[in-house]
C-alpha cells in the first residue's frame, strides 16, 4: 500500500515533427500532454527559412518573381500575381483588360489545385484515403494545363509586372472549358465520399472551435476566418485584377470548427470554377502586356525579335532592371488559397526594393495553432493542422 503513495501523475512532453507526415512540411510541435489532453502546445518554425526578404532587397523588381514561386509552392501562381500587383501599385501601372482576365483565370485554377491538395491531405490525415486519389486525379489535369500554358507545373513564374508572360492558346481555353464543365460533378463525388461519412463527421464537427472575434484577433484570414462567420475576402474588400467584373459568392461558416472550414473550402472550389467559366466567356481580345509604362515593363516578344530598340530595352530590363522607381511605401494584399498574402514594399527611388516584407497567411495560422489545439486530444492536432491549411515554405519564407 505504501508503494501506491509514491506513484504520481505528471505531464508528458511529446515532440511532433519536424518530420511528421501530417505536419505538411517541417513544422515541429512540442506538446505537453496530461493523458490524452493537450495542456500546452508550442510550435517551432524556421526550418525552411531561406531569407527571401533579404534576397529580394538585393535583386531588381523583375528578378524577384521566381523567388515568390517558392513561398507557397502549391499555388505559386497566386503568389506571383500578388507580388506583381504590389509592384504595379508602386509604379502605378495599369493592366490591359485581357491580362486582367487571364490572371484572374489562372489564379482561380491555382486556388482549385491548392484546395484539392488540401482536401486530399487533410482527408488522408484523418483517415479517408480514397479522397486523396480522387482529388489528385483532377489536380493533375490543372497542372497539365499549367504546363501547357507556361512549361512548368509548380513554379510557374507566369505573371509579369504589367501583364503576363505569354498569351493563352485556343487549345488551352478549350481544355480548360471542358474541365470547368466536368468539375462540379467531381466535387459532388468527393462529397459523397466524406460529407456524411460518420468517421469524418466525428473527427471534424466541434473540433478546434474558434469564435469570430477571436479569429480576427488572431489575424486568421481566408477560409480559416470565414469558417467562423466573418465576411472578409480580399477579392471583395479590395478588388484587384478582374474580380470586380465577375460574379461570385463568398461562402461563410457558422460554428468555426474544422467541419465548417472544410465546407467553406469546398464551396470556394465551386465559386472558383464559376469564375474561370465567366473569365473564359468574357475574355476580350487585345494585348497581354501594358505599353503605357515602357520604362518598367517588358516589350512584346515579336517586337523584341524584329526591332533593335526593343531588344536593347528588353536586355537592359532583364539584366539591370528599371534604374529608378517612385519613392514611397505600399502594402498590397491578395487573396491566396491560404488567406491574405500581403506585400509591403518600401522603395527609396532606386531600382531595387529597399525593404520587402511578405505577410504570409501560413505564419499567422501556425501562430494560432496552440489556441486551436490546447484542451483537445492529441488525435485532433492533425485535424487542426489540416483545417488551417498551412504550407511551411510560405510560413518560414
Amino acid at each position: 500500500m505504501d508503494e501506491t503513495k509514491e506513484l504520481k501523475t505528471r505531464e508528458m512532453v511529446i515532440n511532433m515533427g519536424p518530420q511528421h507526415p501530417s505536419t505538411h512540411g517541417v513544422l515541429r510541435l512540442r506538446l505537453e500532454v496530461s493523458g490524452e489532453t493537450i495542456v500546452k502546445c508550442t510550435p517551432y518554425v524556421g526550418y525552411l527559412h531561406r531569407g527571401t526578404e533579404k534576397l529580394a532587397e538585393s535583386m531588381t523588381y523583375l528578378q524577384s518573381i521566381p523567388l515568390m514561386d517558392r513561398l507557397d509552392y502549391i499555388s505559386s501562381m497566386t503568389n506571383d500575381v500578388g507580388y506583381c500587383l504590389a509592384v504595379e501599385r508602386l509604379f502605378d501601372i495599369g493592366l490591359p483588360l485581357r491580362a486582367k482576365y487571364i490572371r484572374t483565370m489562372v489564379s482561380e485554377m491555382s486556388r482549385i489545385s491548392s484546395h484539392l491538395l488540401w482536401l486530399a491531405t487533410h482527408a488522408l490525415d484523418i483517415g479517408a484515403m480514397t479522397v486523396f486519389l480522387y482529388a489528385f486525379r483532377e489536380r493533375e489535369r490543372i497542372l497539365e494545363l499549367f504546363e501547357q500554358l507556361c512549361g512548368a507545373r509548380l513554379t510557374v513564374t507566369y505573371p509579369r509586372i504589367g501583364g503576363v508572360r505569354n498569351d493563352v492558346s485556343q487549345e488551352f481555353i478549350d481544355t480548360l472549358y471542358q474541365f470547368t464543365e466536368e468539375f462540379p460533378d467531381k466535387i459532388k463525388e468527393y462529397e459523397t465520399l466524406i460529407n456524411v461519412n460518420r468517421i469524418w463527421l466525428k473527427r471534424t464537427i466541434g473540433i478546434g472551435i474558434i469564435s469570430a472575434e477571436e479569429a480576427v484577433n488572431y489575424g486568421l484570414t481566408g477560409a480559416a476566418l470565414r469558417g467562423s462567420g466573418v465576411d472578409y475576402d480580399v477579392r471583395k474588400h479590395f478588388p484587384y485584377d478582374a474580380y470586380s467584373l465577375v460574379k461570385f459568392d463568398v461562402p461563410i461558416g457558422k460554428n468555426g470548427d474544422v467541419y465548417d472550414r472544410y465546407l467553406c473550402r469546398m464551396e470556394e472550389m465551386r465559386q472558383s470554377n464559376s469564375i474561370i467559366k465567366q473569365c473564359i466567356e468574357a475574355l476580350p481580345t487585345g494585348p497581354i502586356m501594358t505599353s503605357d509604362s515602357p520604362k518598367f515593363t517588358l516589350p512584346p516578344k515579336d517586337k523584341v525579335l524584329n526591332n533593335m530598340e526593343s531588344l536593347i530595352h528588353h536586355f537592359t530590363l532583364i539584366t539591370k532592371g528599371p534604374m529608378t522607381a517612385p519613392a514611397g511605401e505600399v502594402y498590397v494584399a491578395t487573396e491566396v488559397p491560404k488567406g491574405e498574402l500581403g506585400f509591403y514594399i518600401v522603395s527609396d527611388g532606386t531600382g531595387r526594393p529597399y525593404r520587402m516584407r511578405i505577410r504570409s497567411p501560413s505564419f499567422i495560422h501556425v501562430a494560432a495553432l496552440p489556441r486551436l489545439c490546447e484542451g483537445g486530444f492529441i488525435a485532433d492536432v492533425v485535424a487542426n493542422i489540416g483545417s488551417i491549411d498551412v504550407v511551411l515554405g510560405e510560413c518560414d519564407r
Partner: protein
Amino acid sequence: MEPSQIVKILDGGFAGEVIATSEFRGQPGITLKKDRLLDIARCLHDTPEFKFDLLRDLCGVDYKKMKKPRFEVVYNLYSITHRHTIRLNVQVDEKQPSLPSVAGVWKTADWHERECFDMYGITFDGHPDLRRILMPEDWEGYPLRKDYPMAGPDDEEWAGFKEVLKKAEEFKKFGWHLNERK
C-alpha cells in the same frame, strides 16, 4: 472614416504624438512617437468609430542612412466592419531599440513581434515570450539589418570550411579521390 479625420481625433487625444502624415497611392500613413503607442493601439482597436480589429501586418524597417531615428516598426491596420485602413510608422531609436508590445491588443502581434526581434533586434516591452523565431536560438546578429552582409559576417569564409578542407586532405591518404578519376 476618412484618414484625415482619424489623424484629427488621434491628435486631439494624444497631443504631440503624431509627427507626420503621408499618403502614397491612396494609402494613408501616420508617423508616431513610440512612448504612448500602447494607448493609441487600444484606442484604435476599442473605439467603435475606428474599430481596427485586424492587424494585417507588423514589420520592422531599417533606414540605416536614409533617416533618423534608424528603425521604424510598421503596423498595417484594417477595420473589417468599417472597411478603412491606416498604416502606423512608429519611430524607434538605434541606441535604445525597444517599444511597447501590442500583443495584448492584437494576439496576432505576438509572432510578428518575435520575428521583428529576430530580424532587427528590436525588443518589445511586455511581450509574453520574446525569443528568436525563424533563426536558430544561438544565432548571432540580426539578418535584416542593413549592415548585416548577404554573404555571412564580414564576407569571411564559413567557419566550418577549414574543417572540410582538412577532412578532404585526410581522405586523400586513402586514395579515394583516385578512384573517382577512373
